[in-house]
C-alpha cells in the first residue's frame, strides 16, 4: 500500500528508467566490466561488510564517482552495530600468500578513456580487499568508512581468462575477484 502512495509522488517515467540504464551502461563501458560483474562486485562487498558489522541495507549503496581521469568507487554503508566477533567467511579458504606489506588501497588513477591505462608508479602487489582486512586484524578504518576505493582497471570477467591488458595492472590480483565470495579470503 505504501508503494502505491509512493508511486503517486515519484512517477517512474521512462525518462528516469533511461537515466538509470544509461548510468549502468556507461559505467560498464568505462571500466570494461560486464554489468553482471559490477553487480557481483557489489554483492561481494556487502558480504564482507556484513561480517564485521550490521548495517542498514536500505540505505547502503556503492556508487562510482567519475572524476577527471579516474573512476572512484564509493561505498556508503550506515553502520548500526559493530559485531563483537567478526563472522567467519562462508567457506574456508586456502593458505594465505606470504605476508606482504599491506598495500594502501589507493591505486593509480584509472584513465576513463578506453585505452590500456598507464600506471603512474610501480605499486606493491595488490591484495584482494578481504585478505587485507584479515591481515590487519580488526578491519582497517579504510574499509569501513565511505572512503574512496579506486579500483584497478579491467578486473577480470567471470568465465574468461584474463586479458593481457591486466598484466600491467597487477599480477592478476587486482581488485575484487568477481564470483569469489568473501569466503575465499584467508583466515588468520
Amino acid at each position, binding site marked *: 500500500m505504501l508503494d502505491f502512495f509512493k508511486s*503517486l509522488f515519484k512517477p517512474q517515467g521512462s*525518462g528516469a528508467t*533511461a537515466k538509470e540504464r544509461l*548510468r549502468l551502461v*556507461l559505467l560498464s563501458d568505462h571500466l570494461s566490466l560486464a554489468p553482471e560483474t559490477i553487480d557481483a562486485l557489489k554483492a561481494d562487498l556487502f558480504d564482507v561488510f556484513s561480517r564485521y558489522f550490521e548495517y542498514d541495507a536500505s540505505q547502503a549503496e556503492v556508487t562510482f564517482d*567519475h572524476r577527471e581521469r579516474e573512476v572512484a568507487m564509493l561505498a556508503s554503508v550506515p553502520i548500526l552495530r559493530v559485531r563483537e566477533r567478526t563472522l567467519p567467511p562462508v567457506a574456508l579458504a586456502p593458505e594465505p600468500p606470504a605476508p606482504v606489506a599491506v598495500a594502501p588501497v589507493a591505486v593509480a588513477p584509472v584513465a576513463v578513456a578506453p585505452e590500456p591505462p598507464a600506471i603512474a608508479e610501480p605499486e606493491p602487489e595488490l591484495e584482494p580487499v578481504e585478505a587485507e582486512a584479515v591481515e590487519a586484524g580488526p578491519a582497517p578504518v579504510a574499509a569501513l568508512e565511505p572512503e574512496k576505493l579506486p579500483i584497478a582497471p579491467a578486473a577480470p570477467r567471470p568465465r574468461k581468462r584474463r586479458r593481457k591488458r591486466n598484466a600491467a595492472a597487477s599480477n592478476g590480483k587486482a581488485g575484487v575477484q568477481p564470483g569469489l565470495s568473501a569466503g575465499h579470503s584467508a583466515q588468520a
Partner: protein
Amino acid sequence: MEAIETEITAPVPEAPVGDQPVAPLGRAIVITSGKGGVGKTTTTANVGAALAALGKRVVLVDADVGLRNLDIVLGLEARVKYHVLDVIENKAELDDALVRDKNVDSLYLLAAAQTREKEDVSTEAMIGLIEQLRARFEFVLIDCPAGIETGFRNAIAGAGHAIVVCTPEVSAVRDADRVVGLLPHDWKPELVVNRLRPALVRKGKMLSVEDVDAILRLPLLGVIPDEPGIIIATNKGRPIALDEHSPVGAAYRQIASRLAGNDVPPPTVKVAEPGFFSKFGSLFGGR
C-alpha cells in the same frame, strides 16, 4: 541620367602580409557527437550563420567525405566547384574552393568531396588546411562525420575545441560519452542538447537536459528545442538561425553570442514540475 552599373564584391579575407600586425589565429572548433543524425550539420550551419550575422568572419568545413551535407543545408550545393580534397591535392586554390554564403556576407563554406573516401585525407593534411584557414577567419567550424573512425579522427585534427551535440535519447548520450573519451584530454568540450521536447520531458518520457548534463558532465553551451521548422529550413536551404521569429533560431543565436565571448545568461529550459492532478491523470489512464 545614365544608369551606372557597379558590381560590389567582398574579397575573401586574406592572411596579413609583411609588417602588418599579425591578427590572432581564429578558433577552430569541431562539432561532433558520435551518434549520427543528432544535428551536427544543422548546428554547424546555424551557429556559423549566427556568428557571421554578428559580424565575425566564419568558415564552415565539411569533413564528411563521401556523404557531404553542409552545402545542402546552406542551400549552396549548386555553387560548389572545388572541395577540400582538391585543395589538399593542389588541384585548386583555397580561394576557388571557398564558397561565399548567399545569405550572410562573412560566411564561407569549404565543401567535402562527394565521390571520394575519408581514407583519402591524411591527418597532417587536415592540420595544415585548418592552420591556413585559422589565419584568415575568426572562426573555423568543422562539421564532423558520425562515428569514431578515420573521418572523426581527421575532423578533430587541427581543431582546438569541441562542441558535442547530443539529443536526449539513450543511444545518443551513450555515443556522446564515448566520443568525449576520445577527444584530447586537455580540451574542455561543451554540450549542446538538441531536439528537446519539453512536453515529453514533463510527462517523464524523455531524458531532461539536467539528466543529460549530469551524465555527460560537460558545460552546457545551449539547448535547442525540437521544431518542424528545422526540416523546412533545411529543405529551403536557409539556416533557421537567420529567422528572427523562431525560438530555435534564437537558441542558435544565443550559442553564437556565447562563443563570441558575450555575456549571455546560461541556457535554461523551463520544464514545469508535473502538477498533482496530472499525476492522477496519468494514473487513471491518461497519457
